[in-house]
């Protein structure tokens, strides 16, 4: 009974997993490529051979949307994973030790989280002549660790004084064992649930950068697709529709997954 409920809760990861599987399968198996252009098909509506139609310079929109989705998902997971790897240990250490280390870590989080992302991206991306996907990932990674550290610190602080941790200590369990068996498992869940939220934020951020022209130079991004859509709003509304749908699905799927993860780990909580 409880397992079935848990299975249902974890099932909300399905949409984003499906998006990933479909786009990865397409990229690996299909011969279609977003770099092949056929000018005579520019802005043509969906047809049997091009199910999503064609965009600027006749780019195959099916290939473009699949490649862009896969790349943005990989970027978002990578950045969220990096943020988790840096932020969680830092925050946990801060929350467990307390004192001035904790205070300074939280101050640093405040500072990093109060940065306007767009200005930071613009300032950092001026250092390269053409921004690549790696540079964009770097910009997001600069600030990605802060929310993880903040949650881990708050969680570690409450775990430090939790009764079952105190009980373990009173029973003579060693420090390391208390940490690995009692503190860490209860700490990681809520922190990991932040990953979905962070990843959704990265997807929207990358899309916005691509839209205003700060995206990857090959133009394979949801933001570039959206820009094509807005440029050809009058001629080819199908491009805009596709772009809006793709963005909503990817970011919505990630948000749903993070909500599910959060509910799932709440079952474990104190």
């Amino acid at each position: 009974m409880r397992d079935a409920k848990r299975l249902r809760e974890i099932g909300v990861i399905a949409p984003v997993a499906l998006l990933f599987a479909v786009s990865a399968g397409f990229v690996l198996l299909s011969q279609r490529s977003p770099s092949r252009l056929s000018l005579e098909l520019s802005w043509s509506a969906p047809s049997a051979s091009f199910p999503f139609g064609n965009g600027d310079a006749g780019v195959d929109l099916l290939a473009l949307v699949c490649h862009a989705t896969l790349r943005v998902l990989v970027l978002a997971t990578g950045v969220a994973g990096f943020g988790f790897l840096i932020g969680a240990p830092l925050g946990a250490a801060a929350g467990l030790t307390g004192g001035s280390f904790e205070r300074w870590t939280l101050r640093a989080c405040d500072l990093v989280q109060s940065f306007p992302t767009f200005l930071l991206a613009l300032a950092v991306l001026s250092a390269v002549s053409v921004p690549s996907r790696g540079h964009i990932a770097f910009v997001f990674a600069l600030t990605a660790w802060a929310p993880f550290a903040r949650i881990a610190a708050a969680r570690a602080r409450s775990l430090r004084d939790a009764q079952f941790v105190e009980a373990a200590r009173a029973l003579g369990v060693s420090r390391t064992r208390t940490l690995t068996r009692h503190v860490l498992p209860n700490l990681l869940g809520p922190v990991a649930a932040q990953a979905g939220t962070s990843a959704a934020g990265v997807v929207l951020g990358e899309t916005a950068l691509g839209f205003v022209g700060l995206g990857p130079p090959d133009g394979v991004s949801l933001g570039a697709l959206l820009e094509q859509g807005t440029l050809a709003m009058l001629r080819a509304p199908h491009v805009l529709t596709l772009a809006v749908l793709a963005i909503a699905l990817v970011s919505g799927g990630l948000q749903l997954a993070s909500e599910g993860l959060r509910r799932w780990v709440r079952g474990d909580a104190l």
Partner: protein
Amino acid sequence: MLPQPEMQRRTRSWSSGLSRAVLGLAGRGLGASLVLLTLASLVFLSMRLLPGDMTSLILGEQAGEAERAALRARLGLDQPLALQYVDFLWGLVRFDLGDSLARPGTSAFSEVARALGPTSALAFLAVSLGTVLGVTAAVCAVSPWLGARRAWVHRGILAVAATPLIALAPLATYLLAVRWQVVPLPGDPEAGFVGLLFAAGLLGLPLGAQVARIARAALLEEVHAKFLDVARAKGGSLFRVWVIHALPPASGPIAVVVAAQLGALLGGAVVLERLFERPGLGTLMLNAYASRDVPVLEAAVVAAGLLFVVAQSLAGAVQAWLDPRGQGEDA
């Protein structure tokens, strides 16, 4: 006997709240200047550490050596980095970073000042609209006025909060301005105030949803407060009970959420300016980035950062003033 000490206590708490807000403002000012200095140093360093020759990026590969040397001298690139940095900081203090490269003869900061007007109008209108919309939605979602339909208001709030602006804005523009033609295209110079209002509405909508979520939660905490019972027992109207009595204690969290959304608002403003091809700070920054107009880009990033941290500090101070709780550890 009784009223007098009561009065005194009230005035004292009022003034101590104010002084604490000032203290908090000073602390926040320090953090804010740190953010600003980091941002300014980053944009300065990025431009100088650019691999290869910055002058060839600005002038193009074919530029002659004499031209490059002249540009280098003009931007001070022939001096040591530390000296350039000191010059840059001094320039910031004096609001003078030299002339724009794209439009010789106009100073970089006057370009920024010209772009600041449309962007601040857009941002100010968006914040006002978002706050009014959000608070109205929250009151509708909590007060008994709508009865069982309150749940739908809440669902609507959640739906709007989950909709990304970057997907919503182009879609709404297509449907409202192109397909049904009920609003003018905001990029159209003839659209005037209606265009500005449409753009600000789009920008304010996600902000409004966040405000509504937080305000609803804050109002729900007060549903069972004694002072609301008293207001109800005195026969106060729904409007009086919820807007005059319940809303003011909930305004602290609202100020916090507005402050937290300012970064998103700035990013959103850049996206909307690009979408509607409106003049403004975002358009200026993107153009300066594309043509590597170094003085203008530096000035614009610093000005946008300044606007952002000032707005954020103000919102923080308003919150500290409205709700002095939880400030003890901070001050």
